[in-house]
């Protein structure tokens, strides 16, 4: 018995020694000869549409690999919130968002609007088909918009709130009748409303829509069709032969998911991937020193801000509602330091809620308030907040110390940013010890507005409506967008007015006034308009448009091509 066991152990040991070395060593000589991976042999059997083309004559498809830390949570466009740029390669809209502040004809070739601003008539492009071969005429588009409204599709139905009637007059004419005039029909409402095929979605109940998953959920009219998605690993897109602009120059786009940024950067340097959709600040230097990589530091529609709880039933201390306290906090808010430490310099100090990349919408009359704790202290002294018990923290009139809760989601850069904020406030006698927590714990504070200060951010629409919408009273309901609890009658009135102001100059004036209002009331101290940093292999690809702030955005991506 004992000797048998001993033999068994020896056999195990021998096996253990040889087995990994078989796996481990065999491919090694091969790897020294050729760097790139052997492309999978395209599995023509699995793809009926490719079956006609015989592999030997077919040139190797041009594949662009995108590295990302998260692909998406679902292929279903009706409730998926991640990676708009990826979905935008699959679906089309009536009007397309091009460079940051421009819009272009997409499925609609041209359009006219009646004098009262209520009836919009779109001329629809001919010869457009969905990836499954079914036609996409004004009929299908009308169906898609109506279906979106009827089913209250989460991701984009709220853009269509004013749509009273959508009808196809003939296959190339679509007519939309509005209940009220809309100030941003072209620049907001239609940019995100994807046209989905009735051949897939018609006849489903709400629950069926919500549960629909799989490749068919990725059928649209866009330049790429969804071929495969393996959760947590990769996603494959393939050029759509019948795309109305013509087949795209890059044959395949593969998204690969990486668990860490550092490894993703190594993968780009190694040539395993060709594009990184969001380069973290610390990675920029090592990528810039590589001559095969082009780093793009682009203006974006991202803002980060310190949210000050402004809800009248919130749990914040009364002193935080005092405009003078908020003004003093603005003087103690060191934007320069926040950008240096939190964004490694890749951002610009902010003033209003609308970033400078929005062009004319940004109120450039508002001048930044520079870091000046002396002035901050003076304001608080004057307003009667004094440190009566000499513990370094001021008290309000009733003797309550000015101690605020300061939260953010748990990332390394947020931890640094909170330190800067906390340090600045302590210089004017306000105590705000930083706490980081995970995102859902933070979201959990919202129903009761149970916080004082939160550092967070937004990715905005190119049209200012959305950025203003998040400060409206109704949005404070659970599930709404209003995260500061701000609610103001004047602001509300201006919001409603700009929404129906068709004259864009008049609308701009209103938007400027609203920014001034927010700047004075300070539900947010906007810290920075930070850059979107992307990087790609410039030895393999070229020509991507740079105006979108994102080279993976359809308008800019389609301009790119492989280097032969």
């Amino acid at each position, binding site marked *: *018995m*004992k000797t048998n*066991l001993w033999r068994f*152990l020896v056999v195990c*040991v021998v*096996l*253990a*020694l040889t*087995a*990994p*070395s078989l*796996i*481990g060593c*065999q*491919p090694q000589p091969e*790897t*020294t000869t050729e*760097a790139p*991976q*052997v492309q*999978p*042999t395209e*599995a023509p059997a*699995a793809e009926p549409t490719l079956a006609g083309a015989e592999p030997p004559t077919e040139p190797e498809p041009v594949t662009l*690999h995108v590295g990302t830390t998260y692909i998406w*949570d*679902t292929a279903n466009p009706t*409730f*998926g*919130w991640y990676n708009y740029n990826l979905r935008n390669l699959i679906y089309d809209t009536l009007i397309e968002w091009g460079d940051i502040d421009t819009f272009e004809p997409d499925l609609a070739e041209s359009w006219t609007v009646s004098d009262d601003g209520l009836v919009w008539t779109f001329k629809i492009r001919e010869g457009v088909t969905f990836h499954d071969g079914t036609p996409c005429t004004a009929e299908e588009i009308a169906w898609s918009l109506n279906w979106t409204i009827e089913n209250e599709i*989460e*991701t984009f139905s709220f853009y269509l709130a004013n749509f009273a009637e959508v009808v196809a007059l003939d296959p190339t004419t679509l007519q939309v009748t509005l209940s009220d005039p809309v100030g941003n029909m072209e620049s907001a409402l239609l940019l995100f409303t994807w046209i989905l095929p009735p051949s897939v979605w018609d006849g489903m109940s709400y*629950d069926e829509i919500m*549960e629909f998953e799989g490749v068919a959920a990725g059928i649209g009219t866009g330049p790429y069709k969804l*071929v*495969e998605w393996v959760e*947590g*690993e*990769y996603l*494959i897109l393939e050029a759509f032969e019948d795309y109305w602009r013509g087949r795209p120059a890059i044959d395949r786009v*593969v998204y*690969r*998911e*990486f*668990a*860490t940024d*550092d*490894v993703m950067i*190594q*993968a780009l*340097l*190694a040539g*395993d991937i060709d594009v990184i959709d969001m380069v973290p600040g610390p990675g920029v230097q090592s990528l810039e020193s590589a001559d095969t990589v082009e780093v793009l530091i682009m203006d974006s529609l991202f803002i980060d801000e310190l949210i000050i709880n402004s809800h009248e039933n919130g749990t914040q201390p009364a002193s935080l509602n005092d405009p003078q306290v908020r003004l003093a906090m603005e003087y103690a808010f060191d934007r320069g330091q926040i950008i240096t430490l939190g964004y490694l310099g890749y951002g610009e100090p902010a003033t209003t809620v609308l970033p400078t990349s929005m062009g004319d919408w940004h109120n450039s009359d508002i001048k930044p308030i520079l870091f000046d704790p002396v002035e901050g202290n003076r304001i608080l002294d004057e307003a009667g907040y004094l440190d009566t018990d000499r513990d370094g923290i001021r008290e309000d009139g009733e003797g309550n110390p000015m101690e605020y809760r300061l939260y953010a989601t748990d990332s390394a850069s947020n931890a640094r940013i909170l330190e800067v904020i906390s340090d600045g406030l302590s210089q004017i006698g306000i105590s705000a010890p930083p706490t980081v927590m995970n995102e*859902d*714990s933070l*979201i*959990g504070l919202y129903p009761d507005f149970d916080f004082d200060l939160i550092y967070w951010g937004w990715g905005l629409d190119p049209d200012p409506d959305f950025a203003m919408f998040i400060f409206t009273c109704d949005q404070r309901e659970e*599930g*709404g*967008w209003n995260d500061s609890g701000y609610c103001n009658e004047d602001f509300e009135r201006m919001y409603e007015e700009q929404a129906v102001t068709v004259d864009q100059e008049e609308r701009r004036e209103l938007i400027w006034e609203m920014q001034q209002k927010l700047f004075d009331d300070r539900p947010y101290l906007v810290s920075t308009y930070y850059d979107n940093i992307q990087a790609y292999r410039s030895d393999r690809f070229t020509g991507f448009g740079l105006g979108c702030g994102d080279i993976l955005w359809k308008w800019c991506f389609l301009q790119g091509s492989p280097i032969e």
Partner: protein
Amino acid sequence: MQRRDYLIRKIFFAFITLIVVAFFNFLLFRILPGDPVRLIIHSPRMTREAQERIRTNFGLDKPVWFDGERLHEGDVIGAFDSQFTAYVRNLLRGDLGISFAHRQDVSTLLAERAWRTVVLLLGGDLLAVVLGMTAGLIGAWRRGTRLDLAILLWGLFSWALPTFFLGIILLILARGRLPVGGMVTAGLKPEAGLTYWLDVGKHLILPTITLAVVYTGEYILIMRSSAMEVLSEDYILTAKAKGLSTFRILRDHALKNAMLPMVTMIALTLGYTVGGAIQVETVFSWPGLGRLMYEAVQKRDYPVLQGSFLLLAISVIAANLLADLLYSALDPRVKAE
């Protein structure tokens, strides 16, 4: 007879442990703050009705233990229609539930991820065992020499080496020669046969080396100290005096007796292997159990957490049981106990 009693006792205790684990499994995740429904709903704009519907679908509308009011009214069966009884009932049926986040059967999900983790870790584990044991034994035999010092230093170094650090360094060194992370080239399927497996093998090289290096330290140190103790025994001197070769002394006398602490060590490591090595999986973007659990914690995915912790518990308990059994085979004294 004694041996059979020993076995039965061990198996009985393993079973009890498992029941306790299953109970705590349920309790543990419900103490966590955070509402899973908030994470299932992807949209902040979802209506209350829709949220309620999701709650009902996943059984989260039921009380956690029992409904006190209904119990008071005498409706005993209705009162115990709770999350806990549903959990026990499903567990007995072998049904681990449906993942909140993946909307997939947990057993399928676990099976899929578990084999990937085993593929990832087994090679490195076994390599570490063999190298660690050999080096430890040589160190003990050559005690005090430069070779021993080198082995000892290496043991301490590799034991202290952070996994993610070594992983990233290896990635940088192998850049351009080996794939950076992932398990297989996108789009390649097992149907491709040898091409697929060679591709997986290529992706395995770096994680295997990382694990082997990081785990050897532990084995070297334990093997060395345990072998050193054995080698100072009189019977080794006797063996030498009999004129046995060094190899035979080491194999037949030293290794065998020094094996006891190693068996525990190896069994435990293998047990934990199933739980995945989060760090290795993270560095190499390997879609294994470790990452699944990490994501499940973030998303409050109770069914996945319960399932994977149960799997982890089973494998650790099984490995311990195996160690106990091997002990009784290796060491006659254990039986007499």
